[in-house]
């Protein structure tokens, strides 16, 4: 019932308040950067006995009933010299002035606001009909020496659920005040470790970096690069090969070596949280998307031991180049901002790339057939009629360190392209990094 009542009040008061409670000019300037206040305070509190005048704040008491005014107490006692802040957007928190039950006697009430003789021009109220004075208007106090904006208007003095929501001298913000603006700033982010989390047949670990220019508060342009310093087939795929002689299709186990893409980032949600009740952090939910290219490779031969003349050599795994692929990227995560210049980012991104394996190291099936035939007759590969892209040198010669004959890998390369396969791969990785904003 309370939500419906709240919603109804919200709609009704918004339509009434819009023409007669314009925000001050200086406040509007900030509102352009700061979203409108939340409707949190629009939730009506439980009925309480009417209270004619608010009392002075008594400090954070034990939590009252779970009603909204407790939020207002968060900032109802700003530090001395607190700068004027944006007034809340019109109507969202307004309650009927004639309803004394809207005054919350459980919430601490701030001290009376500054009062002067004349209304400042910045209030923007000149020429407008003053709204009816509320019963919960604070007692006027004289503080002519203050430099703070004058608050002679009755509307600015009104208390809503015990909080002076319309007083520009008092910071009454719940989530609506972002402490740090992003618009127009640059952000450089480094992700020391990116780890693939959906690797059934593949496993990637790498490092990434991106540059972000925040075009607007909630919209940014982004360029990102990533290098996977570990990209190999997963232990699961190797287990299948070892135990049941099965393996993923070549296209399904394609490995991403590096990728570069550009795109956009939006920040639809933001918030703040307290860690153990004594530390504040501001965070944003970020969503990103982009497109670019990535370089791929495929495992030709896993690491093996080569026995030559009674001596064993460890031969590292061998990979074949499978070319560059178009790549798309979508992702989302959190950005925790510390101070004006630093942030932590925790994100999950899905790098989507098309995979068709019909060439390995530039050689197609016909090339591999010719190489294999030449290998059996010990023919020179240079005399073969191969496709121009085939890098046959990679399948020729003997490694002086491991004594491994590369010609033995021809049949393995052929196996990858004998049945050309295609797939669309999703490389979902976890990104954890830090940012510097400037």
């Amino acid at each position, binding site marked *: 019932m*309370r939500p419906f009542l709240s919603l109804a009040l919200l709609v009704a008061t918004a339509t009434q308040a819009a023409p007669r409670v314009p925000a001050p000019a200086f406040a509007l300037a900030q509102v352009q950067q700061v*979203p*409108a206040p*939340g*409707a*949190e305070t629009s939730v009506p509190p439980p009925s309480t006995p009417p209270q004619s005048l608010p009392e002075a704040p008594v400090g*954070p008491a034990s*939590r009252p009933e*779970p009603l*909204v005014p*407790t*939020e207002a*107490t*968060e*900032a109802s*006692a*700003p*530090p001395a010299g*607190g700068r004027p*802040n944006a007034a809340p957007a019109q109507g*969202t928190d307004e309650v009927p002035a004639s309803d004394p039950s809207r005054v919350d006697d459980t919430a601490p009430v701030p001290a009376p606001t500054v009062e002067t003789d004349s209304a400042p021009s910045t209030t923007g109220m000149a020429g407008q009909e003053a709204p009816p004075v509320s019963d919960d208007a604070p007692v006027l106090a004289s503080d002519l020496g203050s430099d703070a904006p004058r608050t002679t208007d009755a509307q600015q003095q009104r208390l809503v659920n015990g909080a002076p929501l319309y007083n520009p001298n008092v*910071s009454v913000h*719940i*989530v*609506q005040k972002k*402490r740090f603006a992003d618009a127009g700033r640059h952000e450089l982010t480094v992700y020391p470790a990116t780890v693939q*989390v*959906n690797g*059934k047949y593949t496993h990637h670990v790498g490092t990434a970096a991106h540059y972000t220019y925040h075009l607007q508060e909630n919209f940014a342009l982004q360029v990102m690069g990533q290098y996977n310093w570990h990209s190999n087939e997963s232990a*699961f795929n190797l*287990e*299948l090969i*070892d*135990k*049941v*002689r*099965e393996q993923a299709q070549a296209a399904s186990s394609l490995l991403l070596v590096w990728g570069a893409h550009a795109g956009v980032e939006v920040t*639809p*949600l933001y*918030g*703040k*949280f*307290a*860690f*153990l*009740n*004594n*530390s*504040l*952090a501001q*965070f944003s*939910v970020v969503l990103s998307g982009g497109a670019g290219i990535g370089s791929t490779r495929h495992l030709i031969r896993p690491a093996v031991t080569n026995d030559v003349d009674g001596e064993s050599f460890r031969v590292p795994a061998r990979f074949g180049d499978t070319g560059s692929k178009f790549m798309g990227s979508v992702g989302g995560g959190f950005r*925790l901002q*510390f*101070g*004006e210049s*630093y942030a*932590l980012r925790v994100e999950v991104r899905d790098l989507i790339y098309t995979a068709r394996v019909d060439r390995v190291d530039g050689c197609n099936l016909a090339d591999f057939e010719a190489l294999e035939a030449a290998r059996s007759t010990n023919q020179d590969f240079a005399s073969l009629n191969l496709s121009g892209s085939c890098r046959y040198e990679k399948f020729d010669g003997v490694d002086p360190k491991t004594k491994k004959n590369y010609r033995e890998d021809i049949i393995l390369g052929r196996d990858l392209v004998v049945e050309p396969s295609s797939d669309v791969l999703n490389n979902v990785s976890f990104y954890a990094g*830090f940012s*510097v904003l400037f």
Partner: protein
Amino acid sequence: MIARTLCVFASLAVSLAAPVAAAQDDENVLDNVVVRNRLYEPGGKLEVSFGVGLPLQTHLTAHYVFNAGVAYNLFDTFAVEARAGYAASRHTGLARSISESFLNREDKRVTDELEDLWQMNLHGVAGVRWAPIYGKLSLLSDLPAHFQAYVWAGGGLASFKRNSVIQCTQVVNRELGICDNRTSVDDRGSATQNFWAHESRVAPVVSAAVGFRFFILDTHGVRLELRDWVFRDNYRVNLVRDAWEEGQATGEPARSPGLTHLVQFDLGYTFSF
């Protein structure tokens, strides 16, 4: 400037609290205890919950976990919780494909069982939930959502079953990979019994999770969490095909079978009294 930057990054790596406090020194607009007046304080309340867990990644098995839980919030940030439920599990299409093709594979007469084939069913765990983070999220600028972020850790017992995809004790049709009593070769669903080697056991299970709980009104909540169920794997190695196809026990237990992880995305509902 460089020294200060390094100092800040080192602090970030150590903990959340230190850099936040430092940042607040610079930004003196808000109180040090900004979110102190929580709208929702679960401390001292009993709560019940229901949840459904979906697999994030499937290899040979897939689990769909249904849970019910009871928790008591000792403090606003700390609770003890007991959960029990049932995991509906199955073999994936990949596992079925392997089983059918392996029946006709003659080049592998001695092999090891595949790892991570145990399927969890009934389970019960008890654990603690620590929610050090209480926050507010602005949804579309107008709707604040209050949430807790938490970590969960606990342990308990679970029943498991394991159906091999390698050991068929009674081959019906090797070429077609049939190892059950189906009435039609094309209709796997017509089988009422299969002849794959199977085992069952009850074993300890450990569970850990990270998640968010979003408060709705006074007593309701929505829970989103990433949960890992961990239990010890157990399989046999050096299996001889001729022996298992004659219904004889073969091979020996793996000496280091490792741990099986079932990572789930859990969506739940909580009600606080």
